[in-house]
């Protein structure tokens, strides 16, 4: 077995965006392991300067092609809090449903298309179409369902149309909501197929203690707004987002790093599960139990499983939300508002973790200053340290260079990083 080698993955595949993994081993000892983001920053915060509030969500949603609803809603929430605007209840429910649609399609994309090939021992999803056609079909149909929830609630599956400051520009159509409800009920059993598949996979038995950060509210599983909590016992107001993130730069990465109580921390499905599992739907808790996921879980590979558990929760909660929307009068969906000077943070649980937009407006409602802190940015330091820990753990277990390379790729993919978002 080789005792001196360098692993240089340039760029890592099956993640969103461009980043590299480099590992150096000498005499069987790990010398260095590094996560290097190389994608060019896009300067969205500067583009936002001077823009009127009405237009902001249409620009921020373009930060990402996967979590565009989260970006739109984070900036809408920041502007509504800054200018003291209360959206009507119908809009709030529709927005929650839209978030569910986005998270479902994002998790389905990651679980089936990006992560599953690793566990099944294939290089992509294509060989799985031969060996596991039912799983590939389930993945496609769940992704389609997530897209459809997003389309019915926001007018388009990617880059929402009807999410605006003050509420919605247009109410969802009741007939379309009823059809969506039917589609959810028909496709829910696909998640059982998915759970059975993921139960059959060997998840590496690795763990490294870290701090989990997520949104929290006292009534439900986190989605839009709330206070900021960490598994190390920190609790802060939404506007204190800078104290939760403490961004800093690394000379080797175009994406920033963050820290809180420890050297690194994690955001995302596993963080939400660890901090708020009590608010999951009983069916989701049952799925978690059957998949061996219990809080507090420090195995980063289990983020995949936490995403699957969230999919179960989402479909149960979406059914309830649609039922209540069908019972409501869907006419008044937007609160009239007047521009005013102010500043506030809008935090939402995007599929990959807490997303913060902080916006300051002038008296005309134009953006004076914008700051966006992305979930993947909050995971960079954790990914970097996990690479070291996984490589050392694998070396101790006598794994060879090929096995270490694969484990390192897998641990990064488990975070479902969106590198393009992180260099907004």
């Amino acid at each position, binding site marked *: 077995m080789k005792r001196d080698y360098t692993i240089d993955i340039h760029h890592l595949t099956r993640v969103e965006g461009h980043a590299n993994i480099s590992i150096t081993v000498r005499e069987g000892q790990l010398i260095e392991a590094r996560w290097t983001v190389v994608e060019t920053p896009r300067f969205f915060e500067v583009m936002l300067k001077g*823009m*009127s509030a009405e*237009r902001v969500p*249409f620009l921020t949603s373009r930060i990402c092609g996967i979590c565009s609803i989260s970006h739109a809603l984070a900036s809408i929430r920041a502007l509504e809090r800054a200018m003291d605007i209360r959206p009507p209840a119908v809009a709030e429910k529709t927005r929650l449903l839209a978030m569910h649609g986005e998270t479902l399609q994002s998790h389905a994309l990651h679980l089936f298309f990006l992560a599953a090939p690793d566990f099944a021992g294939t290089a992509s999803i294509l060989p799985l179409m031969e060996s596991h056609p039912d799983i590939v079909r389930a993945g496609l149909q769940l992704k389609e369902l997530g897209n459809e929830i997003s389309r019915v609630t926001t007018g*388009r599956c990617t880059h929402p149309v*009807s999410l*605006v400051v003050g509420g919605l*520009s247009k109410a969802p159509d009741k007939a379309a909501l009823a059809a969506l409800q039917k589609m959810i009920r028909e496709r829910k059993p696909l998640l059982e197929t998915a759970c059975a598949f993921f139960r059959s996979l060997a998840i590496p038995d690795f763990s490294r203690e870290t701090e989990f950060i997520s949104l929290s509210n006292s009534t439900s599983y986190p989605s839009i707004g709330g206070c900021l909590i960490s598994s190390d016992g920190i609790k802060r107001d939404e506007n204190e987002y800078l104290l939760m993130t403490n961004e800093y730069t690394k000379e080797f990465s175009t994406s920033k790093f963050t820290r809180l109580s420890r050297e690194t921390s994690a955001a995302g499905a596993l963080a939400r599960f660890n901090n708020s599992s009590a608010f999951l739907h009983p069916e989701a808790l049952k799925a978690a139990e059957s998949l061996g996921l219990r809080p507090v879980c420090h195995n980063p590979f289990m983020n995949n499983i936490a995403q699957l558990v969230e999919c179960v929760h989402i479909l149960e909660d979406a059914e309830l939300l649609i039922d209540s929307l069908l019972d409501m009068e869907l006419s008044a969906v937007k609160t009239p508002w007047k521009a005013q000077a102010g500043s506030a943070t809008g935090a939402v649980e995007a599929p990959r973790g807490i997303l913060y937009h902080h916006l300051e407006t002038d008296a005309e409602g134009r953006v004076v200053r914008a700051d966006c802190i992305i979930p993947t940015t909050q995971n960079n330091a954790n990914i970097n340290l996990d690479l070291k820990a996984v490589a050392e753990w694998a070396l101790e277990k006598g794994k060879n260079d090929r096995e270490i390379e694969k484990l390192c790729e897998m641990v990064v993919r488990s975070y479902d990083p969106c590198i393009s978002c992180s260099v907004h």
Partner: protein
Amino acid sequence: MERIIISLVTGSLVTLPKYPVCVECKAALNTCLFELGEICLGPITRAGCHAVCTTGKTPCLGCRGPAEEINMEAFLHLVGERELSRSDLQEKLAFYNAFDAFTP
């Protein structure tokens, strides 16, 4: 997407519509956003999007660029006679950098 696949199957050239978003918006039986007091770039923007934004009651921002033959003068007159906000117009025209060549 459907249009592109049909073109590929029939071996014809993939082309974009020459007409503006208004054509698709009218076909979708939407109320004109100008009637609701909004500036919408639909009259000068190339169609092909099935008027997805205006169907969602949000004004067109011109993401597909100008339609084949646009009448910018008439469009500006439309905005002027309704006394709609000049700065709103400028912000919308600049959103996708699509109308620099036509902006007065």
